[in-house]
């Protein structure tokens, strides 16, 4: 009989919603929430012996949280760790992916479950991820797929696309019988023979982002300005990095109709900031936004802007910032944002 430890978030653990997003890593010695149905589907051969849960903000924002989660997971002595399903929830997906990556690094077999569009997908570090439905309403079929994958992995099988495996399969070097030059001749002949798909390297997956529905009533909506141009108050009080940024910041705009040169500057290391420092509106169009606000084209401008430096930013951090910005702005009832990108 195999031992499964299940990772979920505070919401599915029944602790609470957004208000409990800071719940610290916690464990219970049994299946909880959707884990109960999962336990039914994988039993009696396999048992959910423990559930570890954590608030989404804590798991995706606190660097120590993942390590603490793995410690709790380990104490359940799992044969397999299962994380999710996270559907399209950005922070939950990120948390599941990071738990999966950390579990793999710790030598624990793991499967995560989320929708293919979940921005956390690419953070799983090569750990297997299977596709779930888009929304929690699809929990039933999502658990069915997940349970099937659990059974296969515990039987010693490797998950493939047929099991609903999604995300990057790690590219590791192997030694082929023939050298690359002669494989190239083979590939030429395959293509000339009509095989239009033959290749050793799949074309990279372009990120797919589910477009948000259009804003139907901009005249009553709150709009935010956000930027990766590293525009900060002149003394850079919070020490935003010029490259490989590890954080993002928020600066107030209330009462301001414009940005005076000399009071602001860009600390971005990726381009010449002279033009921007001459006129900060070249990075953050506050003057135009205020004008349109006064003309009634937008309901109101969010009274702050969000900023980071998009220079050599790790993909992981960039993804995290985007997820956090969305959560933060949604929390403040912002409906739309304009991102100025350099």
């Amino acid at each position: 009989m195999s031992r499964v430890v299940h990772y979920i978030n505070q919401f599915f653990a029944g602790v609470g919603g957004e208000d409990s997003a800071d719940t610290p890593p916690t464990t219970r010695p049994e299946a909880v929430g959707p884990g109960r149905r999962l336990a039914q589907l994988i039993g009696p051969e396999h048992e959910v012996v423990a559930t570890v849960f954590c608030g989404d903000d804590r798991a995706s924002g606190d660097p120590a949280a993942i390590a603490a989660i793995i410690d709790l997971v380990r104490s359940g002595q799992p044969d397999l760790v299962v994380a999710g399903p996270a559907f399209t929830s950005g922070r939950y997906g990120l948390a599941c992916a990071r738990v999966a990556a950390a579990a793999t690094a710790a030598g624990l077999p793991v499967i995560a479950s989320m929708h293919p569009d979940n921005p956390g997908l690419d953070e799983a570090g090569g750990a297997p991820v299977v596709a779930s439905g888009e929304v929690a309403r699809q929990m039933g079929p999502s658990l069915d797929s997940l349970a099937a994958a659990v059974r296969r992995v515990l039987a010693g099988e490797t998950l493939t696309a047929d099991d609903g495996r999604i995300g990057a399969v790690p590219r590791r070097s192997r030694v082929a019988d023939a050298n690359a030059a002669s494989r190239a001749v083979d590939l030429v002949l395959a293509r000339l023979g009509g095989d239009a798909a033959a290749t050793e390297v799949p074309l990279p997956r372009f990120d797919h982002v589910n477009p948000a529905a259009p804003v139907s009533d901009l005249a009553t909506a709150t709009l935010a300005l956000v930027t990766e141009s590293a525009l900060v108050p002149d003394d850079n009080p919070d020490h935003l990095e010029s490259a490989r940024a590890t954080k993002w910041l928020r600066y107030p705009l209330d009462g301001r109709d414009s940005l005076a040169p000399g009071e602001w500057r860009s600390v971005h290391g990726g381009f010449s900031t002279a033009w921007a420092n001459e006129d900060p509106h070249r990075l953050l169009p506050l003057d135009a936004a205020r004008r349109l606000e006064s003309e009634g084209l937008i309901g109101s401008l969010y009274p702050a802007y969000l900023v980071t430096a998009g220079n050599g930013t790790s993909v992981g951090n960039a993804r995290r910032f985007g997820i956090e910005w969305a959560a933060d702005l949604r929390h403040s009832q912002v409906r739309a944002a304009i991102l100025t990108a350099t």
Partner: protein
Amino acid sequence: MADMPENGLTRLVHHVTEVATGPDTTFADGRLTVSADAARQCLADPALARIEVTWASPGQSVRIVKVLDAVEPRTKGAGGGGIFAGFVGPDRVQGRGSTHVLRGAAVVVAGFLPRAQEAVVEMSGPAAALSPLGATHNLVVEFTPTDDAPWEDVDRALRRGALRLAVHLADAALDAPPDAEEWLPAPAPPTSGADGRYRVGAITNLQTQGTFKDVFVYGRSFSGGLPTLVDPGDLDDGAVVSGQFGHPSLKNPTFMHQNHPVVAALRARHGVDVDFAGVVISPEPVVASQKELVSAHAARLCAAAGWDAAIVTKEGGGNADGDVALKMDALEDAGVTAVGLFAEMAGPDGTGPPIVVPPERATAMVSTGNYDERLVLPAVERAFGGNAVALVDRPATDELQLPMAVVYCALSPLGWGHLTCAPELGTEELSG
């Protein structure tokens, strides 16, 4: 048309099985002896104060670091007979008659030059098989520049000297009966293909980024050139000489141009299921508009030469991927099927995006392995080329943890190696 006599090149192959130093340079029964004095003479130049030559042979507990270029000893007659056009021989076409080859040996220059990236060859251990030089008896040339000698002069002196030394070694085999003869016919003319075989050629991109990152054709920098057909026999006879020292796992040393793997793979199938249609060499410009021009020009050239397909190779890192991608797309647009060879830069755990600049319309890509994978190289007794390994700031003889990127030719863009990241091929590589 009557058969043209001698429309091709004969390689007279001598296998080197043993090496030694001695009073004279001689070759007999597989044993190559070099006179250190004569070797130093080959490299005599005002820019070089001191030259040391030492053999490093397969199986020895030896590491060569700061590897610059490698050259296979070859000659067409005493003093070279025209080989290495523009450097040792006059700048004339060759690729005909016969060429003596000391197979199993190489002249390897090792030491510091500006803009050269740390490059490692292991003569034993798990990484030996990742480099062609792990299986050759290498005459390692170490050097001390003259005080105040400009580095460009040092570079030129080493290049000319190494080629001279390669000729000097091969000259010792001129009177020895060859172990094998290999006939390399010139490529089939555009009228072939009537038998239903596809005409397939090789497009070889050469790095052309100026001093220390340049490639020479008939003795001249190829920078600023346009793609051109070149007789593959001329490649055998050293018309393409490498002067670029970056990206060690992704570099094509002179040795590799002399033994062009894609040409060899096409020759192996010539008359069977393909017709070897020839070689186009192309520069790799740095400016985007030039890259596009060169790629479109190359595609038209291949179409005009009646190629049905082209195998495109590169030299260098992500920037060079762009040149392969552009050529592949231009070829497909011109009705020539394209295959490109790419090393993958997928990060140490293999989950990053593999290709920096992939093609958009052409999609047939061969993988030459993962650049970022980590290797553990065991400690060795002796190291040549330098006392320390730059990347990890350790003594060169220590156990080293290095990415695959540092091992000389490990991801050979010309397709010499057996590495791939294609999951359906081969066994999992054990890497550190």
